[in-house]
């Protein structure tokens, strides 16, 4: 799903859109959208090795694509601190069954997003 908000092109991506893909395909899809100047809001999060691969491939692109300076990447997780063991267990089981859809990942071109400021409870996009 794509939305234009104040000239910003936002691609809202349900996890199902990349669920069946391998690591290379996922990273390629994300980078293609970012190179099209879109900000991606992914329902879920990538695995650590996929994030590392995304950084690697981004760096290779910075080297080869004119005016591409890289990405901004941030994940916001639900704050389960202070929740009871039952809620934490439920969250853990849901994570295993349907993927980590309770997290949100924001990925965008560094030239569009100046910075993503993050603390454990909130996320803030500082736009150029």
């Amino acid at each position, binding site marked *: 799903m794509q939305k234009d908000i104040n000239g910003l092109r936002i691609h809202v991506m349900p996890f199902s859109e990349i669920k069946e893909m391998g690591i290379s395909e996922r990273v390629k899809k994300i980078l293609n959208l970012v190179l099209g100047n879109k900000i991606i809001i992914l329902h879920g999060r990538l695995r*650590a090795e996929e994030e590392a691969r995304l950084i690697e491939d981004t760096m*290779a692109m910075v080297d080869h694509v004119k005016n591409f300076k890289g990405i901004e990447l941030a994940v916001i997780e639900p704050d389960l601190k202070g929740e009871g063991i039952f809620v934490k267990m439920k969250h853990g089981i849901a994570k295993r069954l349907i993927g980590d859809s309770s997290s949100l990942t924001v990925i965008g071109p560094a030239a569009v997003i100046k910075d993503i400021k993050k603390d454990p409870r909130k996320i803030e996009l500082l736009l150029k």
Partner: protein
Amino acid sequence: MIKILKNFSRRILGALFRKKSNIKVGFYGPPNSGKTTLANIICKDWTGQEIGAVSHIPHETRNVQFKEKVEIEHKGKKLTFKIVDTPGIATKIDYEDFLKHGLSKNESKKRAKEATQGIIESIRWLDDMDAVVIVLDSTENPYSQVNITIIGNLVARKIPILVVANKIDAKKSNTKRLEDAFPEYEVVGISARDGTNLEEFYESLFKLAKKV
């Protein structure tokens, strides 16, 4: 039966000896957090030679650099390390940032190109590490995705981690914020610039080595 047991114990002891004799410790973190400054102190103290150049301009280290057989003695115990200093990992590189530090356009573009290669190299070396010291600038917000991505990759590879909160000599330093961000790991506050708390660092480094 005795022969089998003998072979088995020789193999196990051999593996342990090999592992402990030259522990590969990687220094990872974002750019300008003080990885090379810390690696230099260690290498200078125990081999008489530094590992690499330092600068206030980000991405000074653009290649993985290492020092073999660094024998460190702490409280009567000796361990030998291979110290691996890595380029800072970032998700963006803009050559214009280097212009602000007084570099020419050509120098800046060259530095940016080398920095992107350095980041790729850093990530690829993760697989080779026995243990990792994550060096963070204690004046900066620790909740950056790069820090979390590095730690996530080390956890996935079951590589032991020590977090160093560097620059505790700076006014804005906040070691507590780092401890809160990474409660699962030991966080040791140091100043690599003036050598504050290095004894505590070596204590933690030896504890880290035990986990290898």
